[in-house]
């Protein structure tokens, strides 16, 4: 398959009446989703959408969301999906930056997003007194044909622009072609061994590349996707995993921190659960170990990637995680090559720490309308991920940290991840995040933010004693902040930028 929407069309042709999506009490077959996306494609074309035009989507995960995604692609459009809780001013920024011609909202998001100045298709559920200016109701789909639209699309044409927030400046749009997404999807299907019998529980949002891989991989093989947008109540998600007999689950580190520390996950048997994947940042090895211990019959795939790589770059085979490679992000996925290089692009020797660089058919086309940023990250030797790491003798890659997050303490480069991992290994802390604070003497000192496992019994002295035995003195946090929860990005990752801003604010007002 060379085009992303062919995943849906192919599964529809093979088994039209098989369940593609489950959401709440609703079931949708491949045929139903395909017909709905065809209608959406015809509606977009009727609204004047041309090949290459961008369509902004602001929806929670749903059947409408899935039909919109494939419908945009069938019409030759480029999907631009953003967080469903985006504010009107954020939506305006993305419309302006991407040049989107049409926007698609859900009934829920339309209630909050007023005054968008482009035509807006609105999903079911929005009632009267709609304050939007150019409103196209979902019911307009009823009169549209449900046959495949006849738009010729090439595999190198753009399928999506995915915005990613860097540590500085406005979000950048990562341009991904059909080929980028198709090749990455095929690689993931291959190493996870997915088949039409697989059924994934999707709690990650589809606008996030990791969440989107859940959809595309399962639609490629004719599997099913269970949508649950209520991970705020993890116990309900766990019960649904049992009820719906899911075979797979995917999460970021905070997903697993919540499951292991604040839910019934460790007490619940999920007999059908074949595998679990973790990506979206490095998970502390202590948490990984506990996860393996509690669900020993389920394969745990530790994975690594980047939006700029369509999602995925490496995975750690579960048997090596258990036997001898805990802490590694694994080996390159099929069709991807990973090298470790210095800033000039020279490849480094084994075990030398340098920039993690990647080549392969999944690497982005560049940043949308930003040649300067593109030239910084797309080098002749591949994508510069911005992460630091090394390779061992067997080619397994170990992540050291984000280049921009590395601390410089008294001339020593220190990875916040190393400190965070030890804090979590204490077993006293639910989540931790370490950032740097400017210091006259040492140039920078570590500052630790922690959420204690049990606020009532937690003693900071115990944690400090644990660190004292395991980390050199300059790596001991100079400041500690106890929090009830960590600020999170929409993807569930800890939002270090918010912590840094809070720290700077405190320093300036002290």
């Amino acid at each position, binding site marked *: 398959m060379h085009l992303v929407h062919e995943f849906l069309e192919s599964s529809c042709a093979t088994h039209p009446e098989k369940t593609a999506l489950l959401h709440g009490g609703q079931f949708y077959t491949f045929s139903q989703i395909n017909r709905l996306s065809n209608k959406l494609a015809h509606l977009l074309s009727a609204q004047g959408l041309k090949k290459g035009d961008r369509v902004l989507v602001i929806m929670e995960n749903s059947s409408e969301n899935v039909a919109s995604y494939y419908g945009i692609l069938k019409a030759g459009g480029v999907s631009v999906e953003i967080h469903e*809780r985006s*504010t009107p001013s954020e939506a305006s920024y993305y419309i302006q930056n991407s040049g989107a011609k049409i926007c698609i909202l859900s009934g829920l998001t339309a209630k*909050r997003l007023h005054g968008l100045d482009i035509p807006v298709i609105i999903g079911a559920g929005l009632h009267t007194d709609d304050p939007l200016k150019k409103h196209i109701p979902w019911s307009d789909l009823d009169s549209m044909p449900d046959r495949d639209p006849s738009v010729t699309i090439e595999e190198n044409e753009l399928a999506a622009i995915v915005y990613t927030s860097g540590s500085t400046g406005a979000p950048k749009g990562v341009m991904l072609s059909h080929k980028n997404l198709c090749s990455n999807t095929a690689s993931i299907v291959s190493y996870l061994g997915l088949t039409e019998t697989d059924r994934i529980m999707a709690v990650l949002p589809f606008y996030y590349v990791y969440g989107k891989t859940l959809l595309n991989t399962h639609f490629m093989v004719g599997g099913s996707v269970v949508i649950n947008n209520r991970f705020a*109540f*993890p*116990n309900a998600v766990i019960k649904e995993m049992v009820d719906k007999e899911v075979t797979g689950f995917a999460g970021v580190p905070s997903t697993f921190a919540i499951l292991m520390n604040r839910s019934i996950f460790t007490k619940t048997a999920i007999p059908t659960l074949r595998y679990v994947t973790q990506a979206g940042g490095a998970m502390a090895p202590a948490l990984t170990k506990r996860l393996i211990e509690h669900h020993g019959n389920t394969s745990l795939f530790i994975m690594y990637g980047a939006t700029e790589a369509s999602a995925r770059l490496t995975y750690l085979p579960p048997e090596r995680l258990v036997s001898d490679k805990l802490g590694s992000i694994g080996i390159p996925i099929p069709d991807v090559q990973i090298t470790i290089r210095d800033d000039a692009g020279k490849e480094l020797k084994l075990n030398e720490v340098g920039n993690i660089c990647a080549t392969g058919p999944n690497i982005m086309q560049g940043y949308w309308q930003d040649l300067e940023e593109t030239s910084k990250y797309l080098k002749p030797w591949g994508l510069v991920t911005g992460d630091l790491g090394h390779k061992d003798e067997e080619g397994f890659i170990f992540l050291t940290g984000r280049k921009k997050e590395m601390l410089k303490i008294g001339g020593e480069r220190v990875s916040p991840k190393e400190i965070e991992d030890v804090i979590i290994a204490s077993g006293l802390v639910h989540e931790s995040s370490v950032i740097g604070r400017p210091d006259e003497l040492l140039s920078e000192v570590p500052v630790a933010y922690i959420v204690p496992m049990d606020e009532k019994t937690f003693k900071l002295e115990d944690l400090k004693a644990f660190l004292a035995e395991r980390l050199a003195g300059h790596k001991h946090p100079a400041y500690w902040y106890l929090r*009830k929860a*960590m600020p*999170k990005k929409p993807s*569930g990752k800890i939002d270090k930028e918010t912590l840094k801003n809070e720290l700077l604010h405190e320093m300036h007002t002290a």
Partner: protein
Amino acid sequence: MSEIISVITEFIRENFIAGRSDVTLDPDQSLIESGIMDSTGVLELVEFLESTYVIRVEDEELVPENLETINNILKFLQTKGVS
């Protein structure tokens, strides 16, 4: 009873919707569906309930029936002997 509602409402206003004029707070509205709380928010709320009312919330009790709306939270607190 109304005092408990106002304490919870104030906590939610201060912690989750400060500065957001687009959000209204109704005792029967879902705090999740309306985008007021996410998974982190639920845990913050639970910590607040535990420390304010000196109760213990078990993992098994982190369910929508107990925490989805302000009225659900109120009923849950009553089962814990808070009045």
